[in-house]
Every structure is written in C-alpha cells, then in structure tokens.
C-alpha cells in the first residue's frame, strides 16, 4: 500500500472515530448506572495496594470527594444523597493523615445542611477529631470543631471552650481569646456570628471559603435589614390602618422611598403572613437559623 493510501486511510479512520463518537453521544447513550456506586472502604487495603503512592492515591480520593460533593450539591434531584462523602473523606485522611484540607474543608462539606450538604456536623466533628489524633497541637482543627459546635449545633458553651482551647495551642491567633469570650457572653446573636464569619474570611486559605464567608455575612446583613423592614411594615400598618399588602403600600405610606433590596440586589418580599422575607430566587436562601438565629 502506498504512503498516500495509508495517509488517506488514517484521515478517514480519524474522521470516522470523531463522527461515531458524536453519533454515540447523541443516540447511543446507555442509561447511566446509579451514581452511588460501591466503594472500597478499607483504607488499609487501599494503602497496601498503593505501595509508595499513598499520597497520590489520597489526592485521587480527594478529587473524588470534591466531585461527589460538587455533583450532588448541583443535582436537582430532591432525593439526592451525599452518602459517599464521609467514606471518601475517611479514606483520603487515612491514606494521607496530614491532608489538612481534607479535614478542614471536609468538615465544612459534612456540616452543610441539606440540600447543600448532608447536614452531619457529628461526622464533621469526628473527622476533625481524627485529624487532632494525628496532629494534637493543630489549633485550626480545634477552632473548626468550635465553629461547627457554634454554627451548626448551637452549642455555644462548647464552642467557647474550644475557641479558648485553640487560643492556647502553639500558633493559635490572638483573636481567638476575645472570640471565646464573646461566644460565651453572646453566643448565638448576630454580632458574635458576624465576628466569627469575619474571622473565617480573614483567615481563609481558599477562594471559595472567602466567598462562603462573604455569603454568610450577606445573610446576616439581610437579617438585620429584615428586622428594620419589619419595623417599617409596622409603621406603615399604623399609617394605613391595615396591613400593607406589598412594598408599594409601604412606599405610599411614606415609610420607605422605594422597594428594598437584599445585599444581592434582589427585592425583599412582604409574605402573606405579613412578615418580611427573601424572594424565592434570592441566592441568600435559606437563611441560617442556628448560630445566626433571628
């Protein structure tokens, strides 16, 4: 066969591969297997099989953790489950017991309530305790446990104790002591919650964590605004002699100059029960109810 003929064959086969792949994507889809596939849960077994590549295998499991969490979080399925999150995190941290991000970010993922996470602060704390067994002096893990206790469990006394404990560990920052005091005195109020999230933002070591903290701070701002708007609604009721049906009534009563917007620029709504709420499409939904309770 001549070289030209071979080159022609090569091009023809390459074009066929691309065409068939495109056709397969369009028409030849096989129904997807359930996403929650089985997972080998024995870190000892995987660790042995990994030989000297344990850290690299841990990285692979970390990537799988992120994929599982991200994919499930974005899924619109109301029955979605995060049931591989904890096993993946456990494997990652067993294969690489000093994988700092897997403990810290993993605890955040585990704590997030459904639908943004599995809502398992107990597993988050267990993961951080595992990290502490590996590195007992790691103030960040103690602080993170305090954070989970504060924000997701509402255990302000435990949280304050953990912040105090973290402050006493090597490298523990100076702001932890005052934070512990504020938490003990005013645990659960918005001021202490705001202080906590500001510290998270200042000390964050990933962009998404900064964004997450800013999101929480925006939620707290929205809650402050909603309190003020509730008062405005009351004032409008007095002037109108009836409950205002929407913001136009409040503006007409001369209490507000225009439709109030939440920190993301979406208008607040007057709910049928007469209270102020976020519009359904506001990204600030759902508002926190524990550490930042109203």
């Amino acid at each position, binding site marked *: 066969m001549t070289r030209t003929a071979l080159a022609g064959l090569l091009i023809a086969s390459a074009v066929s591969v691309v065409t068939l792949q495109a056709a397969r994507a369009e028409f030849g889809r096989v129904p997807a297997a359930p996403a929650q596939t089985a997972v080998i849960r024995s870190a000892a077994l995987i660790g042995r099989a990994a*030989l*000297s590549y344990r850290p690299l295998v*841990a*990285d692979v499991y*970390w990537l799988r953790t992120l994929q599982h969490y991200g994919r499930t979080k974005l899924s619109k399925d109301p029955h979605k489950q995060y049931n591989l999150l904890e096993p993946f995190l456990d494997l990652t941290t067993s294969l690489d017991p000093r994988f700092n*991000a897997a403990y810290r970010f993993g605890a955040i993922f585990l704590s997030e309530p459904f639908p943004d996470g599995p809502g398992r602060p107990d597993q988050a704390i267990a993961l951080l305790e595992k990290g502490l067994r590996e590195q007992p002096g790691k103030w960040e893990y103690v602080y993170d446990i305090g954070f989970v206790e504060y924000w997701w469990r509402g255990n302000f006394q435990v949280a304050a104790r953990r912040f105090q404990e973290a402050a006493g560990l090597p490298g523990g920052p100076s702001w932890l002591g005052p934070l512990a005091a504020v938490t003990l005195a005013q645990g659960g109020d918005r001021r202490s919650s705001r202080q906590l999230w500001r510290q998270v933002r200042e000390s964050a070591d990933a962009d998404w964590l900064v964004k997450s903290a800013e999101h929480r701070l925006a939620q707290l701002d929205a809650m402050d605004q909603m309190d003020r708007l509730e008062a405005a609604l009351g004032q409008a009721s007095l002037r109108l002699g009836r409950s205002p049906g929407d913001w136009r009534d409040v503006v007409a009563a001369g209490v507000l100059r225009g439709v109030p917007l939440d920190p993301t620029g979406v208008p607040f709504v007057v709910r049928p029960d007469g209270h102020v709420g976020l519009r359904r499409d506001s990204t600030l939904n759902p508002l926190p109810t524990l550490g930042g309770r109203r």
Partner: protein
Amino acid sequence: MRLVGRLAVGVFKESVRDRVLYGLVIFAAVLMAATYLLGQLTAGQDIKIIKDLGLASISTLGLFMAVFVGIGLVWREVERRSIYNLLSKPVTREQFILGKYAGLVLTLAVNVAAMTAAFYLVLAYMNWNADDIMRRSWPAPALDPALMIAIGLIGVELLVVTAVALFFSTFSSPFLSAVLTLALWVVGHFNDDLKHFDAVVDSRPAVWVARALYYLLPDLSAFDVKSQVVHGLPVPAAAVALAVGYGAVYIAFLLVAAMLIFQRKDLQ
C-alpha cells in the same frame, strides 16, 4: 577505571539512541496538563497534588527506565554476540558489569536531573501565579529545597532497582528479569511488614523466615519520604544518611553478586 567510564558512556549513548529520553517529554506533558487541570478541580490544594504527582512521576518513570533498560544491558550484548568482541579487549567481566551499571546510572541521573528541573519550573510557575490566600494553605513553600531530599532518595531507590535489574539480567531472560525486578520492587515496599510478621503468625519458623527475608530483601520504604517533604515535615539528616548508606551497601552487594554470577557464566 577508564574502561568502565568508556563502557558507561557507551550505554548512555545507546539509551539516547533508543529514545529512552522520550520519558522526559511524557513527564513534562503530564505535569503541565495536570497543573492546568488541577487548578480547576482541587479547591486550592493544587500545589500539594502537583508535588505528589511530580515526585510520583519521577519515581515511576525512573523505575520503568531502570527496569526496562537494566534488564537488557547484559542480555543484549550476549544475544548480539557483541560481548565476545568486548571481552576480547582488555576488559574483565567485572569491569563489564560495572561499566554497564555506571552507564545506566548516568542515563538515570540525566533523566532525573532533567525531570527535577522541569518539576521546579512548574512549581515556580505556580508560585508566581498564586495569591496570598492560596499560599496560606500551603504546608511548605512551592520551591521548597527539601524536595531535593525526596528526589535524592528516589534516585538512590532507582540505583538499587537498577542493580537488581542488572543482577537478574546476568542469568535470566529479559522477560523474567523484568518480572523478578518488578516483583522485588513491590515486595521491597512491603518489607517492613516482614519484620512484624510475628504479630499475625504464630509459627516460629515462619517468623524466622520472614525476619531473614526482612534483612535480605531490599527495604525500599527506607527511600520514601515524599509525603513528609510535601507536608513540610522535617526529615532527620541521620535517617537520610542511613538510608543512603543502606542503599550504597545493598547496591555493592548486588553488583558483587552479579559479577560473581557473570564470572562463572558460560558464554560459549
């Protein structure tokens, strides 16, 4: 010594002719592609993963090079019958073994050095590209000089594996040599378990055999400090010195064994 050097240079030139250095291109491509992709995927952990991946790639490509070049070093000369030509010159069989080994060591050294340079270039790029928030999450600086400790010990491990491959190639076929070398590499990473065999087995003779194998087989886990270095943990100088000493002695043992076998080999 000059003869050994000339033999070594010959092996190096041959490996260049055999396109062994193409491994470097694969390494650079893998690392650069990973750098781009991981940035999108890893929630700020890209530097740790790039370091893990870089060190694992140096180790793996080096291993393949050591095994697949090492197993053919002696066998090929015998098969081509070029060994008669070589041994008719004033070259002893011991010098032949040493020269072949030194040649592969030279090839590996050039490869590892080039891969290390590429690795540091990628890390320098990431360092330059990172902001303060990202740097906060790094357990060690991007251009951490301690990485050289891990790379150095990977180098010593590769020298041991090369000696193992050369040892097997003095008396078996390339296929069998490859299987035996790779098997020994795997066992070498389990070696530490043999020491604690008594924890899982009651039989005294089995424990003695396991203990004997622990001392006899290469303990390749001694050269693995990748995780410690990536996490910025200190690696004691004494541990490094002992590992290097252990590697050197083990290489000497294997080379002497290879020389002894090759001395008695009937080349007719």
